[in-house]
């Protein structure tokens, strides 16, 4: 018990840090799926965001510029997904998988050019943490929740904004109607294709921001495979979070907690088979999907191509 209590502040810190990239990508996926687009290419878009954010941040010394350009790169990649799925009406799952192959390859190609020409580029810069006076000293939770990078704080601030957008904005309602019944939405004067493309833009920007967080706030390096399946976890958190921003926040924190627990157990029980501990976050994901992955939940037109002429 003592060991657990001693480990708890670090577990919570890992939970919050680990939740941010998943939360950002999940919020992006909420926009996408609310507009009827299941984007399983999050992993690839995050990889692009991670590399471009890292490279631009290193080149210019301005990490916020790195974030912005990383998000633009994510938008560009996701518009490719949008073109295939919205304009060409290609299968969304297959297109997402193609993005997962294409985008990390582009990132690796860029990394080899960037670091190959100058090995000093291998290590970038990192955003500093901002401790909120008073709150950061609260035992156990203070350092975890109130001593983060500004980007981390912004990710959490996005949650109520996204929730409010879908709940109270007319345009948020348009997103939801496009995801539920695009034909009906079209008859109400909503430009379904435009909404879907806008969803791609928002999803690309947020997923890429999640990737950029990994290289701008978590570790100052880019490696091939740095996203480590977080894009797929984000997909699961959207389902677990019932396609709502608040639900996604809870699911991201829960996954982050299990990830932190996994690390703490690995640190304290060295002789035990660590693969067992490594399974914990993923086993949790599977269990969550078993309970919350009902086919009847979620936007009704999710994953289906939209043909304007079809009745």
């Amino acid at each position, binding site marked *: 018990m003592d060991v657990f209590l001693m480990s708890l502040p670090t577990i919570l*810190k890992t939970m919050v*840090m680990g939740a941010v990239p998943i939360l950002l990508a999940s919020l992006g996926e909420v926009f996408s799926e609310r507009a009827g687009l299941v984007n399983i290419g999050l992993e690839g878009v995050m990889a692009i965001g991670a590399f471009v954010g890292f490279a631009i941040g290193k080149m210019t010394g301005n990490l916020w510029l790195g974030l912005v350009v990383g998000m633009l790169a994510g938008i560009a990649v996701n518009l490719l997904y949008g073109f295939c799925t919205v304009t060409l009406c290609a299968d969304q799952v297959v297109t997402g998988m193609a993005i997962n192959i294409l985008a990390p390859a582009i990132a690796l190609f860029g990394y080899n050019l960037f670091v190959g020409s100058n090995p000093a580029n291998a290590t970038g810069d990192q955003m500093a943490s901002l401790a909120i006076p008073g709150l950061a000293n609260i035992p156990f939770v203070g350092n975890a929740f109130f001593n983060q990078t500004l980007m981390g704080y912004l990710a959490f601030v996005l949650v109520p904004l996204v929730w409010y957008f879908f709940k109270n904005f007319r345009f948020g309602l348009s997103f939801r109607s496009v995801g539920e019944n695009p034909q009906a939405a079209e008859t109400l004067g909503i430009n379904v294709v435009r909404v879907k493309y806008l969803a791609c833009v928002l999803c690309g920007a947020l997923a890429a921001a999640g990737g950029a967080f990994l290289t701008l706030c978590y570790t100052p390096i880019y490696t091939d495979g740095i996203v480590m399946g977080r894009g797929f976890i984000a997909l699961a958190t959207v389902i677990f979070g019932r396609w709502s921003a608040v639900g996604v926040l809870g699911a991201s924190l829960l996954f982050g907690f299990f990830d932190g627990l996994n690390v703490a157990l690995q640190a304290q029980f060295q002789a035990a088979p660590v693969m067992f501990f490594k399974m914990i976050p993923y086993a949790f994901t599977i269990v969550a999907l078993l309970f919350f992955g009902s086919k009847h939940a979620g936007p009704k037109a999710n994953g289906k191509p939209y043909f304007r002429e079809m009745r």
Partner: protein
Amino acid sequence: MAENKDLTQMMMSRRQVLGLGAAGAAALTLAACGGGSSDSGSEAGSDSGAGDAEAKDSYKVAMIMSGIITDGGWDQAHYESLQRALKDHGKWEMLEPHENTADADAATAAQAYVDQDVDLIIGNGNQFASDWMEVVADAAENHPGVHFLITNTDPTAEMGDYDTLDPVETVLPDFKQTGALAGVVAGLMTQTKSIGFIGGMKLPSTLAKYSAYLAAAQKIDPSIQGQYNFEAGFTDASFGTNLAQQWINTNNVDVMWGDASAVDNGVRQALEAAGADTHFDIAQPIDIVGDDQPTVVTSTVTDWMIGQAMDEIESGSFGGGKAITADMSNGGITLGKFSDKVPADVQDKVNEYVEEIKAGTFLTDDEVSKIQDTL
């Protein structure tokens, strides 16, 4: 109406195929470019053959790597070893390294070089020993001028199923020496008497390194405790950060030694956050001490003895499944520069121990085995 629907579905299929085909082709092209090229179009040199001492005017060497040459760790160490060997061997020319080679592609990549009759093909890790059995057999029969050097591999234990080892040699670093070098530095630098180690994969070499590391540190001070993780992988830097944070906060670890490439970068982040003047890292296998690495106090450096392999090929003595040992006597294992965080008296003591480690008098095999048996 039904016909129209069928027609629409057919059009969708065609669009899908076109769209996805283009994306897939682009991905494969970029992946190939990003991973380096094995088809550099170099002309093969003339056959030399294992055991053929006839001198040639020029030789070609190619390296097949699991990662990229700028990874700051394992792959970069191999690339730098090759660069050093080339400086001393004017007749040798390097083909572009084949980076990011997956296990499934390892044999194909090697076969491409075999078909070009490249004189020396280097595989940078023991995974290539299990991938290249058929390629080696083919080369021994049809391309007698091709030689293979596989690093970090024990030919007796890991290549017993090969039909022939005539064109093969391996490189085995002296893990006891490497671990002991890191251990004495850790033992002298730790203030909390708690040191840590992260390995990417639970290999015999990883266990041997950690055992010698802890044994050497405990030789300095028997109260020193060791924390370890042998399954950290090689890419997830954030895991390194989180694990090191956990050890720092709960076990007071203040010195780390890593064997996990990118994960080690994450460890250094956690050490820096905990205080770069009180928390230290020992890097490996390249020397990275410098201002941009505030926690790194020194490095254990491995040279993969590629120059010796080149000499043997030139003289015709290469092959037969021999293992070249990289150790302190031949420059295969060295301790890198010290940072200014290592006090002069500590540097002097380390240098004394270095001589004892080199002479084999510092640690006994029993002392190392005693720890290894508990892992």
